[in-house]
């Protein structure tokens, strides 16, 4: 126990200051009223849904919870059920096998709710989604519905392969900040 406490004291506080919201990440006009966002801004529950990713984005979502980014310190936490969630954080091109589960998760999340699409695949289908030989992808395939907004409405998109923890945090903070 002595070693454990000594290590905690020696480690100190690693948390860095969070990024500022970026209006460029916002997809649609604000779906939620400012007053609600004000409330979300001080305590937010997120349900993560992997809709078919390669698990690269999951690595970075995990990293957002480490001591450097310390998302919990901002009053934001990941919850186990969509019933408890204010926001869905969705990764991956939406595989056809996950489309129903994603829609049901969205429907199970109480209003008002926000959706943030994480990663290139969630934003535009990414590398997986085209069988026509075009290098940029983007369309659908026999196994993939492509981008998240093909299946459920999206408020904010964060690109990157995978996006950095700072970019993910910025996307989340943009979604809950009132539009300028």
């Amino acid at each position, binding site marked *: 126990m002595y*070693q*454990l406490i000594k*290590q*905690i004291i020696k*480690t100190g506080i*690693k948390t860095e200051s969070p990024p500022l919201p970026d209006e460029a990440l916002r997809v649609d006009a604000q779906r939620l009223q400012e007053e609600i966002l004000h409330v979300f801004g001080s305590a937010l529950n997120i349900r*993560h*849904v*992997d*809709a*078919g*990713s*390669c*698990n*690269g*984005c*999951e*690595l*970075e*979502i*995990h*990293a957002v*919870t*480490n*001591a*450097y980014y310390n998302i919990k310190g901002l009053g934001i936490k*990941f919850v*186990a*059920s*969509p019933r408890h969630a204010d926001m869905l954080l969705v990764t*991956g*091109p939406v*595989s*056809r*096998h*996950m489309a129903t*589960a994603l829609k049901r*998760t969205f429907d199970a999340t109480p209003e008002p709710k926000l959706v943030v699409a994480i990663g290139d695949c969630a934003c535009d289908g990414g*590398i*997986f*989604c*085209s*069988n*026509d*030989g075009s*290098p940029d992808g983007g369309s659908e*395939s*026999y*196994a*993939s519905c492509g981008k998240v907004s093909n299946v459920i409405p999206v408020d904010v998109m964060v690109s990157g*392969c*995978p996006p*950095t923890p700072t970019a993910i945090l910025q996307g989340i903070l943009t979604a809950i900040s009132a539009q300028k």
Partner: protein
Amino acid sequence: MPINNPNVHLTKLSGAIPAWSGVIKPDDLQPTCQSVSDGGGRLVALWGSDEREQNKGFALHVALVNEKGLICLNVPLPNDLPSYPDISQIFPVANRMQRAAYDLLGIYAHEGHDHRKWLRHAAWHGGSFPLRKDFDAAKSRTEESDAYPFVQVEGQGVHEIAVGPVHAGIIEPGHFRFSVVGEKTLRLEERLGYTHKGIEKRFESMNLQQGAKLAGRVSGDSTVAYAWAYAMAAESIAAVTPPDRALWLRALFLERERIANHLGDLGYLGNDVALSFGFAQFWILKEQLLRNNAALFGHRYLMDKIVPGGVAVALSESDKQTLLEECAMLERDVRLLRGIYDEHAGVQDRFIGAGRIAPKLAAQLGLCGLAGRASSQAWDARVQFPCAPYDKLDVQMATYRNGDVAARVIVRFDELFESLRLQREILANLVHDDILSAPLEKLPAHGFGIGMIEGWRGEVLVAIHTDAQGKLTRVHPHDPSWQNWPALEHAVIGNIVPDFPLINKSFNLSYSGQDL
């Protein structure tokens, strides 16, 4: 020759690892598999291909491994009746691979006992096969629902708990069906395939360089292992050897991937037994390593840094010092944290005895990778088939025999220290040279090549077939999770349901890697 059988004629493939390939008749498949199994060998991968355009019907491909190396069997199958003898009686891990081969290509194992679908849910109907060259995506759509016959456990007080595909944590999707009495698990049945996004079909419309990027995204946590295995397969077909410096850098990347994942897992294993201190500490270390990756190589997970022919990024002399300092820091801190884990009664109480797979069962199931080594299965491609530069590194394999969560933790710690030692050796051997890559633009026609790399989770295999123009006509990436997912079903028997997350984490298998 790796096997002595007068009916099997093998030719050696060029490339970085000892591998042979040969065509055999369907009737010779079972005896050949049996003799490899009797000699202590294992099944690594099984896949099919559509070669009707070359007037060759379909083909089944089976990759076996024994102490000599990889043996790739090509079994031609007729157009009208593409069936082959079941090998899941010899290698139980073949079961899901055979079912997946049917879902994707319509080739099937006769005599098999389990013909349920595996990768197919409801995205395409059962009469269409995505990896056939004449597959029409539009006509394959179906409105049928996804019914799957789970095995039912009956008896007084038995009930089922259905979990997923959307799980409670930040993890990939899959469905688990527990049959329990009270808190005790009688049976777990997995249903995977939720993240099936058509990776293998996607390869067929890509050129060599695009394919390298896709290979690096089969399972994001193993991007280096996949990119290297893919490059190794391409280099084997083209008979190209990457420059020395590129090979040393690849090994550096692979060991850094192993260190990063082991740090992350050790943190989460602490977290799963309510020691959040462990998560906080290990993830500080992991973050520092990822930041060094970003600063020195331009990507936190080193995606796209291995390319066919070589590597895409170098390491300057001055940056070596950063990595040596990181090594020293990690060695010091991980040693201290290991002491804390070892002496923490609460942690050890949860770790020891949980999710045990005895060595004998592990051998039957063909358990591989780090989970296999925690159950006495002494397989590590870096040791048995050391491709350059591992032939100069003398990797020390970490094995343990208890096969429980504690053993998988011990193997992770041991491998982490070994990887840090290897990283120092690699840095010492990394000579300066401006050439990072050998030219490799296009592959020869009708080629077949294979690459196998010991990733952090286990052996990652990539097979490449080219057509008459030298284009990718079939690429099969194989994740070690195919081998280890079925073993998880055994590991949880008799454990309480609340220990499942801990046991699952101690394996930490890939969904995306097996769903393809």
